[in-house]
């Protein structure tokens, strides 16, 4: 009987290997996403089947070893040898114990890593991969997966039944994997069939579900490894192999949900949890509870709550039957009634001419010459085209610059949905269309204006005109939206030439400064000239007055001097002379020669002497050439 268990384990292993290879080949042939996940699951089954078969062999060797030893002991009549040197006498027993102590937990860790890694990598790969099932191979691969499912089911069912027998517990892990593998192959076949039919995403969703299953298996394995540390070790209690997944067992035999749960709880807590009243109640009424849950879920689709600022289009079997305003509403449950929500009151914004850049927008100062968003250049008209020589060109030809200029604009457009039915049913992507229409109007407008005009005096008109034009086309296309605001908030030459525009402004300011300087100088010159003229005329006036008054005064004086003169002409003359002489020579330096020898020659040095204090001036020495 034990030999048969080993054979069953070996058959399971061989079958798992062959079916894994077959599944891998088939899924590579048809490019099925679900097939990839199925092949990984079957590959994990190969590992489990191998571990189960190997452990069976160790236990069989241990059993044979014990039989031989007992036979030998009976023949010799000795019984103490077994008790004394257990480990040395029973190498097979020791090997089994070592296997359970080290290899099995190691396999558990390996399975955890493989399951978690496969779940994560497969999930990412599925997200990026297109649904690339080769349609003309779908039927063949569908049939092959069906055959694999059938083989696995037959073998798995047989193994599961045998595993219930006493001492066949090690057959259970591989049997569960084979039976669960049968169902997974069947589901994979359904995914391929769905793609072949009118549900092209079924394969994708099946693959996603299998990824989740792998993730759950990894979580279960991690939990098992942790709980294994704290599990109470009862003497004589046979340990459940770590690689025996309860989840896979449940998947293989869903009807054994409560049996599996009860076993797990009993095993973990060490007493019969499954005998408690709560567990019994749950076991008896679970279908009713599940059904009630489903009913509640179904009925909950008949109530809908619309938030403030939103409107919803209600469709009954695809036909729009009304617009739901904010509040609570009743509707027929899914799939009869469906609603589609739209933010109607919310002011929505899109940008024309630039792509907002979060990093650049943090700058507090916005300059023409520094790029503050990802800007686009628009073509604008140019009234005075100039042909210039292209210095960067390879040839010496003069490149003709087209009579256009370039400009950068930042135009945020704000809009609101006013007619939700028109918004929902006129265009597949109304927001994108609105942006296209607005961009077209901006391009059109700028193409028909002069650069300098639109940057200066027509700027405000431009914003108003753009708003009305965009609204007109929105109405023309029945988009059901209202343009609230069009801002021409940033309009300037491209960054590359913005510096030259700033220089022009600088030159204009310099011009004004020169004119103002000249005007200041003119005011000064004229003021000084006026003052000088005033002084000159005033001095002349004073002179005139002095001459007049002085003349009359002298005349009066002379009239009075005449009698005195006539009375004593010589004395008067002499007196007048000496008065005048005394007054006139009072401040003069006088030399009086009392000549005793008329032949003496006297030399006077009348040169002015330099003041002595000026000659003795001390010139301060400079700090650079100071000398001691």
């Amino acid at each position, binding site marked *: 009987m034990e030999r048969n268990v080993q054979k069953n384990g070996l058959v399971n292993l061989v079958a798992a290997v062959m079916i894994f290879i077959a599944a891998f080949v088939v899924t590579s042939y048809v490019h099925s996403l679900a097939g990839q996940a199925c092949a990984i699951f079957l590959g994990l089954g190969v590992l489990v089947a191998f571990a189960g078969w190997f452990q069976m062999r160790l236990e069989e060797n241990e059993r044979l070893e014990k039989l031989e030893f007992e036979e030998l002991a009976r023949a010799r009549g000795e019984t103490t040898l077994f008790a004394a040197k257990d480990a040395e006498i029973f190498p097979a027993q020791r090997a089994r114990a070592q296997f359970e102590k080290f290899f099995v937990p190691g396999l558990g860790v390996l399975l955890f890593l493989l399951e978690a890694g496969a779940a994560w990598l497969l999930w990412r790969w599925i997200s990026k991969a297109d649904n690339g099932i080769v349609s003309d191979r779908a039927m063949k691969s569908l049939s092959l997966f069906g055959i694999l499912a059938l083989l696995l089911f037959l073998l798995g069912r047989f193994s599961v039944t045998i595993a219930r027998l006493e001492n066949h517990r090690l057959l259970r892990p591989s049997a569960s994997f084979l039976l669960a593998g049968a169902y997974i192959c069947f589901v994979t076949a359904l995914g391929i069939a769905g793609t072949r039919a009118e549900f092209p995403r079924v394969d994708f969703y099946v693959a996603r579900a299998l990824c989740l299953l792998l993730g759950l298996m990894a979580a279960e394995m991690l939990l098992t490894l942790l709980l294994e540390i704290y599990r109470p070790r009862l003497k004589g209690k046979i340990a459940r192999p770590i690689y025996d997944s309860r989840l896979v067992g449940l998947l293989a035999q869903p009807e054994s949900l409560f049996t599996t749960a009860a076993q797990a709880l009993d095993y973990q807590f060490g007493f019969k949890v499954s005998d408690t009243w709560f567990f019994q109640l749950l076991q008896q009424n679970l279908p009713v509870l599940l059904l009630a849950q489903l009913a509640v879920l179904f009925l909950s689709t008949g109530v809908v709550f619309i938030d403030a600022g939103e409107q919803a289009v209600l469709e009954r079997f695809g036909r729009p039957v009304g617009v739901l305003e904010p509040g609570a509403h009743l509707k027929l449950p899914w799939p009869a009634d469906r609603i589609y929500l739209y933010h109607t009151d919310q002011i929505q914004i899109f940008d024309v001419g630039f792509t907002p850049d979060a990093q650049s927008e943090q700058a507090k100062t916005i300059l023409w010459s520094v790029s503050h968003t990802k800007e686009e250049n628009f073509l604008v008209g140019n009234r005075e085209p100039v042909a210039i020589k292209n210095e960067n060109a390879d040839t010496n030809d003069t490149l003709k610059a087209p009579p256009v200029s370039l400009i950068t604009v930042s135009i945020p457009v704000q809009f609101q949905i006013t007619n939700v039915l028109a918004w929902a049913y006129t265009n597949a992507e109304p927001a994108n269309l609105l942006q296209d229409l607005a961009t077209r109007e901006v391009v059109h407008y700028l193409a028909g204006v002069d650069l300098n005009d639109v940057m200066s005096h027509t700027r405000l008109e431009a914003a108003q005109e753009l708003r009305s034009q965009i609204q007109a086309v929105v109405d023309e296309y029945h988009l059901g939206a209202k343009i609230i605001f069009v801002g021409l908030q940033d309009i300037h030459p491209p960054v590359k030439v913005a510096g030259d525009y700033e220089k022009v402004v600088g030159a204009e300011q310099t011009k004004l400064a020169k004119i103002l300087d000249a005007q200041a100088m003119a005011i000064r010159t004229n003021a000084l000239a006026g003052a000088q003229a005033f002084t000159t005329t005033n001095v002349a006036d004073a002179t005139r007055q002095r001459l007049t008054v002085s003349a009359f005064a002298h005349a009066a004086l002379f009239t009075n001097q005449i009698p005195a003169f006539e009375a004593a002409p010589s004395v008067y003359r002499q007196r007048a002379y*000496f008065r005048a002489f005394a007054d006139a020579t009072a401040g003069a330096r006088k030399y*009086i020669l009392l000549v005793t020898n008329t032949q003496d020659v006297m030399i006077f040095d009348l040169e002015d002497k330099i003041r002595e204090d000026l000659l003795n001036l001390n010139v301060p020495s400079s700090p650079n050439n100071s000398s001691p």
Partner: protein
Amino acid sequence: MKRNLMTIVIGAVLIVIFALLLFVFQVRRSEVAVVTTFGKPTRNLTEPGAYGKWPWPVEKVYKFDQRVQNFEDRFSQNLTADNNNLLVMVYVGWKISDAKAFFPKFAGGSTVAAQNMLESMLRSAKSAVVGRHPLADFVNADAKQLKFDAIESEIEQAVQSQLQTNNCGIEIAFLGIKKLGLPENVTETVFQRMTSERQILISQFQYEGEAEAQKIKSAADRQAAETIANADAAATRIRGEGEAAAARVLPVFQQNPELANFLLRISALQQSLNQRATLIFDERTPPFDLFQHLPTNAPSR
């Protein structure tokens, strides 16, 4: 018995749901559907509602969005009639006008395949139309000279006629120019020209400023000189008036010309000695002649 009833109920519900999914499908207002029976189109459903069907593989349902769908082509370079390189991007709104004609032509009704075909048609039409117009029809400082609408209409008509000829089940709802641009090297020349234009303005402002300042200064100098000259003239005239007034008292001095002359000389002497002077007198000059009879300290011989 109770368990069996529950199993039957659950099974029945599941069967009903499965049967509904297999036998019933919905068509939304935004959709149009084509039902094929063993691959042959048998029904074209344009009205929204719930419809029955036989499950696959007997009948198969193809649903398409019947709303206007947008796409924009690539920003491609074209040559205008006056040999200017111009980059143009257009956006197109298209819709499925005949689903029955549409779905067999595009690999089971693939909108991506339809847009690929539209894009190739569009690029061809765009190049042809752009080549018929000068650059001034696209960009012109005089808005009246622009032919934007005409150009868009020409491209739309060209694509529309091709679609009708091929009976693709598609119609163009609208078409517009979304973006205009210049190739990189042409953009550089435009930048250079814009820079040169700015340089002209800079020079203009610079020399206009200097000229204006010079004019203002010259006018001020002229005005100042004029003011001073006028003042000098007025001063001369005023001094003359003073001289004339002073001359009116001269007859008084004629009463005693000798005294008058003497006084004038005295006055002249006083004025000439007002400055710092060094005078050397001998003993005969009055009043120093008083020293003649004083004893001197001359050395004895």
